[in-house]
Each structure stands twice: as structure tokens, then as C-alpha cells.
């Protein structure tokens, strides 16, 4: 057993030191009738070669994004991740370290987190950011919970955000008794800002708006922020595609009080949905209401600059039932990957990457919208993701047929909104720098055929 360093001789010697006759003597507190059960149908250990063969066989049953024209987004985006990112996060000192509770020997992780927090805060236009959450959807409901702590209100107004995020928030609300009112999306150009604003009232703790929204439309954050603030509510902005902020004004600058997001776009990759990376920024005055870990600057006994986890009186391991969240392990390694990718890009690289994404998406949208029977919903602008209305067709079926032709064409709204028949014609298409001209042409031709 290649991972177990004790030899039979070691075990014998150690049992003698302990004064136990057998290993099972050490398990004497376990009732005999439940110790060492038979496990039916579970195989014994296997060589690395055999396990590798098994896992590769499973991997081959999946259609990898890199092997086909690929246009899926809707909360998970495929960008090119520089090879150095994966190299660096595999450094044993990063990969196999624990949460940096002993700062003297964890400055590597801690400095990265401090840099990460700064990067996220500047990207979001918030004063501060934390050291990461599980993912965008959990960060979103933590933001709602935080807004509740700040405002001591229990009304939540939610715009057309990713339905999984909404679903997650609804689950929590069932137990926290928050009252959610949401605006469902419709296949129209108007992102529904006025409708959202219309739902805000004096009981509203926060307004949650996705930027760009689930259909790729851009809400007018400044206007919504003003309306929310006028009622004493906070604006929570959700960003599922951080690359968009290379081009769009930051939510913080437009008045958002809390900005959360999914950081998977940079450094992390698709990974079939996880592990991902929750981003969380807020105004400085709310620092002590933040969930999750925070890394702060300080000095050591010699006066040298150093970093520590701080304000842990907010956290469960100190505060227990009074903590701001129950979160413990979060997404440190993904934060590292994000931060490295962001460091490679820098502000100017992000700007350029965003513009390329945008230009390619505009190019593809024009070609696609020219197909007979296809309408582009996003007439008022989009970043790298837009929604097509396939008039008279169930987009889910079209997407399936295209997948059979080895084209991953987009996310059909029917998958995300099973009950909303008015959305069934919607196909959310995302075009990043990884989409080639040939890939776009293949999609256009095939979609035209399918709709013909």
C-alpha cells in the first residue's frame, strides 16, 4: 500500500510501546458488534496503473469543451488559463498547506490572500474583499444574510439572476424566514430595472441584481442603487463573469454596497461546476459583518511586515453560534489560481481580454441573429454572452441535436427554467477568446440547418 509508511515490523514495535496486543485492542471502545463489518461489493486496493486506466476510461466518456466548438456560459465560463497558473498552484507548499492559522510559517498563503483581497476589491470597486467563499451562489446568499444583519430587515428583492443562485437563496430563505420577491426574466431587451425598483419597499433588506444578468443584459446599477438607498436597502450585485469587469464600470463605483461573484473565469477552469471560487467585496463600514476569512497586514516581533487572518471574532471557530457564517474551509487554492491569473493579466491585460471577448461575441451574435428564425434578445448591449430566441423551437432540443453533431452551442433556458414555457425558446450563448472563427462558423451553419 503505497501511501502507508508503516511496515509490519513497525506496527509490532509500536504496539509493544503502547502495550496493546493488537490494533483492534485500540478500538476497544467500539461495540464489538459494529466493529469490522463486511463490506459487500467493494474491491480491494489497486495499482496506480489500474486506477489510472479506470479513471481515464470514465474521462473519455465525456465530451471535453476543448475538443468541439463550445459556447456555454450561464455562470461558468471557459477562458484560456496560462500554463504557469496550474504549475504554481501545484507547488506542494501551496497545495498541501492548511489554513494559515500559524502565520509564522504560512506567510506564502497569507500574502497571496492579501494580494487577492486587494485584486478583488479593486475589480469590484469595493473598499474591501474577503479571502473567498465556496462559490458565487453561496456568496450570494451569504450577502443576503449579511444585508439582513446590517439592515435588520427580512425582505429581499431579486432581479433576473442565475436561477441556481435564486434557488439557493430560496432554500436558505425557507429556513431563515426571509421573504423573497423576484423578477423572472423574459425574452426581451429590457433588463427589468424599473420592475425591480418597483418591488423595493421599506421592509427591503437588499436588492440583488446580476451584472450582466442571466440573459447577458446589463442592468443600470446606478439607478437601482439610488432607488434602494432611498428606501434604506442595500444593493447587492452579483457578477458571474468577472472578465466583464475589464470592460464594464465596477459595481462599487455605481453604488453597490456588497458585491459578490463567481471567480471561476480566471485561473480555475470549468471543472464541471466545482470547485469554484466565491468572491465577496463590501464597503469598509460593514467589515465586521462580513462572512468568511479576512487576511490583514501587521508586523511581527521584529517589526517586519507580515500578514495574519484577522477579525476572527466574526467566525465560527471563535464565535460559535454567534458567528457571521458557519463557513470554515473555503476556496483558498482557487483564490490562488485566480490571483495568479489576474497578476499575469494586470489591469491592462484584463481590459484587452475583455475587449476581445466582447468583439468576438458581437461578431458571433451578428452572424447568429442573421439566421432565419433567430432573434437576438440583447438589443441594448451585452458583454460576451447573449440570448437567442429560436422562434418556434424548444431550445433544449436544438441544443441536444447540436451536441449530437459535436457542437456545444449554449445553455438552453429550458434546462434552467423548467416551468417557464415563455423561456423555452431561449438559448444563452457565450463567446470568449477561446472561440475560433471556424467554431463560430460551424455553429452558425449547423444552427441554420437545424432551424430550417
Amino acid at each position, binding site marked *: 500500500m503505497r501511501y502507508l509508511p508503516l511496515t509490519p515490523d513497525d506496527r509490532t514495535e509500536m504496539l509493544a510501546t503502547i502495550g496493546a496486543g493488537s490494533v483492534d485492542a485500540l478500538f476497544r471502545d467500539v461495540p464489538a458488534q459494529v466493529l469490522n463489518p463486511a463490506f459487500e461489493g467493494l474491491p480491494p486496493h489497486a495499482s496506480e496503473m489500474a486506477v489510472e486506466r479506470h479513471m481515464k476510461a470514465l474521462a473519455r466518456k465525456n465530451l471535453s469543451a476543448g475538443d468541439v466548438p463550445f459556447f456555454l456560459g450561464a455562470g461558468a465560463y471557459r477562458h484560456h488559463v496560462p500554463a504557469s497558473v496550474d504549475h504554481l498552484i501545484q507547488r506542494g507548499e501551496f497545495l498541501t498547506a492548511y489554513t494559515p492559522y500559524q502565520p509564522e510559517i504560512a506567510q506564502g498563503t497569507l500574502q497571496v490572500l492579501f494580494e487577492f483581497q486587494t485584486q478583488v476589491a479593486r475589480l469590484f470597486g469595493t473598499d474591501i474583499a474577503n479571502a473567498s467563499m465556496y462559490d458565487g451562489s453561496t456568496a450570494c446568499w451569504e450577502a443576503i444574510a449579511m444585508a439582513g444583519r446590517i439592515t435588520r430587515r427580512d425582505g429581499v428583492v431579486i432581479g433576473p439572476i442565475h436561477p441556481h443562485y435564486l*434557488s439557493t437563496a430560496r432554500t436558505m430563505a425557507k429556513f431563515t424566514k426571509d421573504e423573497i420577491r423576484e423578477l423572472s426574466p423574459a425574452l426581451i431587451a429590457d433588463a427589468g430595472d424599473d420592475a425591480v425598483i418597483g418591488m423595493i419597499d421599506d421592509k427591503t433588506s437588499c436588492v440583488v441584481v446580476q451584472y450582466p444578468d442571466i440573459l447577458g443584459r446589463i442592468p443600470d446599477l446606478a439607478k437601482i442603487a439610488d432607488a434602494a438607498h432611498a428606501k434604506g436597502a442595500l444593493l447587492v450585485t452579483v457578477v458571474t463573469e468577472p472578465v466583464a469587469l475589464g470592460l464594464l464600470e465596477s459595481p462599487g463605483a455605481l453604488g453597490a454596497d456588497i458585491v459578490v461573484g463567481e471567480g471561476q473565469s480566471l485561473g480555475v477552469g470549468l471543472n464541471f461546476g466545482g470547485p469554484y471560487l466565491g468572491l465577496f467585496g463590501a464597503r469598509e463600514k460593514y467589515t465586521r459583518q462580513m462572512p468568511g476569512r479576512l487576511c490583514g497586514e501587521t*508586523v511581527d516581533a521584529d517589526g517586519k511586515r507580515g500578514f495574519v487572518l484577522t477579525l476572527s471574532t466574526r467566525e465560527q471557530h471563535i464565535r460559535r453560534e454567534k458567528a457571521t457564517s458557519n463557513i470554515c474551509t473555503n476556496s483558498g487554492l482557487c483564490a490562488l489560481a485566480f490571483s495568479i491569473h489576474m497578476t499575469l493579466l494586470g489591469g491592462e491585460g484584463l481590459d484587452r481580454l475583455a475587449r476581445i471577448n466582447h468583439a468576438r461575441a458581437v461578431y458571433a451574435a451578428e452572424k447568429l441573429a442573421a439566421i432565419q428564425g433567430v432573434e437576438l434578445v440583447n438589443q441594448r*448591449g451585452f458583454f460576451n454572452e447573449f440570448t437567442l430566441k429560436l422562434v418556434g423551437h424548444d431550445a433544449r432540443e436544438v441544443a441536444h441535436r447540436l451536441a449530437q453533431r459535436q457542437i456545444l452551442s449554449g445553455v438552453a433556458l429550458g434546462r434552467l427554467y423548467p416551468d417557464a414555457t415563455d423561456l423555452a425558446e431561449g438559448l444563452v450563448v457565450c463567446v470568449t477568446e477561446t472561440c475560433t472563427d471556424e467554431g463560430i462558423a460551424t455553429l452558425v451553419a449547423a444552427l441554420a440547418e437545424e432551424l430550417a
Partner: protein
Amino acid sequence: LEEPLIFELNGTGKCGVDFDAEPGDVSPALAKFARKAPVDLPGLTEPETVRHYTRLSRQNYAIDLGPFPLGSCTMKHNPRLNEAMARLPGFADIHPLQPMDTVQGAFEVIEQLAEWLCKLTGMEAVAMSPKAGAHGELCGILAIRAALEARGDAREVILVPESAHGTNPATAAFAGYRVENIPATKDGRVDLAALTARLGPDVAGVMITNPNTCGLFEREMKAISDALHAAGGLVYCDGANFNAIVGKVRPGDLGVDAMHINLHKTFSTPHGGGGPGSGPVVLSALLAPFAPIPFVRRDEKGRLRMVEERGVKDNLPQTFGRMTAFHGQMGMFTRALTYILSHGVDGLRQVAEDAVLNANYVLRSLEGDMDAPFGKAGPCMHEALFSDDDLPEGFSTLDIAKGLIDEGFHPMTVYFPLVVHGAMLIEPTETESKQGLDRFIAAMKSLAQRAKAEDESLKSAPHFAPRRRLDETRAARKPVLTYKGEGVPPGTPSLSEIGGS
């Protein structure tokens, strides 16, 4: 060991990424949303980036460098095969919303892992999507709540032992429960009598860690479960320490209704400096109908399907709902399955046995030098608990911990569990060799002796780490959480950065 911040590395106007396409103009429709200037962030070229992070990494301790005997945290070796498998494009480069026929292999990974988890725990079902242990706890507690509410019996209180992880009460509170502590016996276990006495129609359930955070198996676990069930409550088991009994004991045999499994502890997915984790929750037959979505199910044609919002009505009408976007920590699933298949059921049993053997070896080797509060009560499980009782006045658990750094080891868990004064909780795990343990034990003995000899230098340890003790009060008093170009200046890169101080 000094490394500037990225903001101090002259990153203006640099970029470590090349682009083939020229950036286009912003489309007119979008123009009014466009930012005026790029985000104010430095860029570094690839050589600078690689060097920055490589140098930073060297300021970390890690399991690849030495033992990491953090009790309750389970820092064991992370096999490299797991990393390689998780990076196969067939796993790493697939989108969570691809048509289901194009990701059958991914579903199979989830299905196979789920089967192992159910069989290893003797439970009915498993919720795969929780993102980490605490998220799993929440899942379990929400399932309990949903089940109780479904029978019209919401209840208000969750009982938690004093020795519990902080996540337990935090979770219960988050789910809207009131938390009450249950006391421990003097041998470090749940006081069954006290617990039974507290049971009543207001008690929704109990959260028990087993083996518990004193490193002891809860002998009366079955009796606890029976008592809860008799009183109409349910039993949540914190599975953080499942690694001590995997392949040896099935929690389902002890009457547990829900238990999360930290894949990053028991099944060795890397901690990565603080996550990602993964916390699937196994559920009893009673709780299975209330499990969260999504989950994998085979349809009548044998095709695997992910049951999401769409399939709820037909497949799991009583689900308490969704806890996170998409399907859980796929990258951790592939690693954990790889680990499980590598060990097999015999290997997993050996894992538990060696973990327990190693811990008892440490316990018995050190109990002459340090106070082991429950040492007399019999063998420990996977971790050995000591207190500061034998330390002389003026010397603390923290001094031992920081002294351990100077000996080349990561400290043990300190001041936890709270039921022991100045607790030192040592979990060697099964992946430490006897030679390595002997070296660790020798270091601990040396520290205990230095403390007894009132060696003042111990109080200012560490002396040889990248940093001396850090001023945590200063950090918290006026928090500096982002770089603003002021604050403490960087250290001057000093003599000998090569393995030097």
C-alpha cells in the same frame, strides 16, 4: 525571506498574457456602461510571476515538507495520481450545463463515489453537492429540519457537546435553531445521562462528533441515537473524524441520521491553504426524501441523469432544495474516487488502523512528559489530546506550539477542544512513518523539558521561521485588508534568500 507585494513590483504597463486578436472597440450599445480606465491592477510578465509565487510558496509549511499534526484537521499525504486524474480534460474541461449525454463519465464518477460513501457508512443516500464540511453540516441540519417540519413538528433546539467544532453551533444557529450545550463526562465523552435528561419535544436533534474532538470514540453512540429517536429527535454526526474509523465502523450501524464526510480529510483531497473542501452528506432512509438537489439517478434506459429543479416533482418532491449552483465539487470527487479506488476497502481499513496506531504511539510516548487528561481512560482514536497542566507557570500551550516551529514541525491544534485547559490535540495521520514520529516525539519531549527548565527563549519562539510571532491585536484593531500603498514597508530582501532567514 522577503518578497514584495505584486503592487510593489513595478507592474505598470506589463502583461504576462499575449493575445492574438486586436482588442475591438466597445459596441455602441454597451458604451454607456464601459469603464473609463482599466482596473488599477499591476501586471507581471511570466518570469516575474513564476518567481513571485515560487518564492512566496517557500514561506509556507506544508505536508510535503513535514508532519502537520493538526488534530481534527487531518493533514495526510495527498497522492499525486489524484491531481493528475482531476486534470484529465475529460473531467477538468467540461461545463456543468452540457447536455447530459455528453457528460456520462462525470455522472459515473459521482455515482461511483456516492456508492462507496453509502456503503462505507452504511447509509441510505448521499447528498453530494455540499461544498465543504460546514456546508455539509448545514445540509444535514436542513434535512433534519425539513423532515421534522414535514411531520409538522418543527422544534427549536439543537444539542451540541461542549467539545464540538465551532461550525456545529454556527450551523445550527444559521438554520434557525437555538443551540444548547451538553456536558461531557470526566473521561471526555458525551454525558449520556445529562443528554437524556434534556431530551423533550423541543429538541430537534443532537450534533455529535464521533470519534469526538478529544480523540475518543463515543461508546454510547447507539444509546444516544436510540434516546434521540425515542424522544422524536434526530442525530447528526459530524464526520470530520471519519478517517479514524473508515473501513472499521459504519456510522449507520450506530443509528446516525445524517453525517457529512470531509473528502479533504478522510479521502485526502488537498487542503490547498484553506480549501476547496467537499462535504457530501450521507443520510438515513428517514432523511433521504428530504435531500437537496441536484443528484444523479439512472433512468430506465440506464442513462445517468442529473435531477435538478426540472426533475424534482417526479423524483424527490420533498427535497429541501438547492444549496449551491451546479453539482458540487467535481474536482474533489475525482480525487477522492481515485484515492478510494487506490486504497480499496482493505486499504481504507488499514488507513484507519494506522491512523489510530500512530496516535496511540504518540500518546503513550509523550504521556510521561505532558499531561494527557484522558490518557488513563484507555486508548485514543486518531488523535492524542494533551493539556497544559504539566507546564510550569508562565509557559503556555502557545509556547509549545511555537517552539515546535523551531524544531521544524507544524504545531498541533491548540486551545481546542475547549473542554481541556490549554489543549494540544495531535493527529499524526496514517501517512507518517515511525521514524518521522520518533523525531516528532523527541522534539516534543525536548520542548516539554525546556518548559520545565523554564527556558525563557521558548516564550519568544519561533526564532527561525520566516516571521517571528505576529501582532494579531494590531491587525484586528485597525484592519488593513487591502493594499493602499501605505502601511508597513516591505522588508528589504536580506542576506541569503536561499533557504535562509
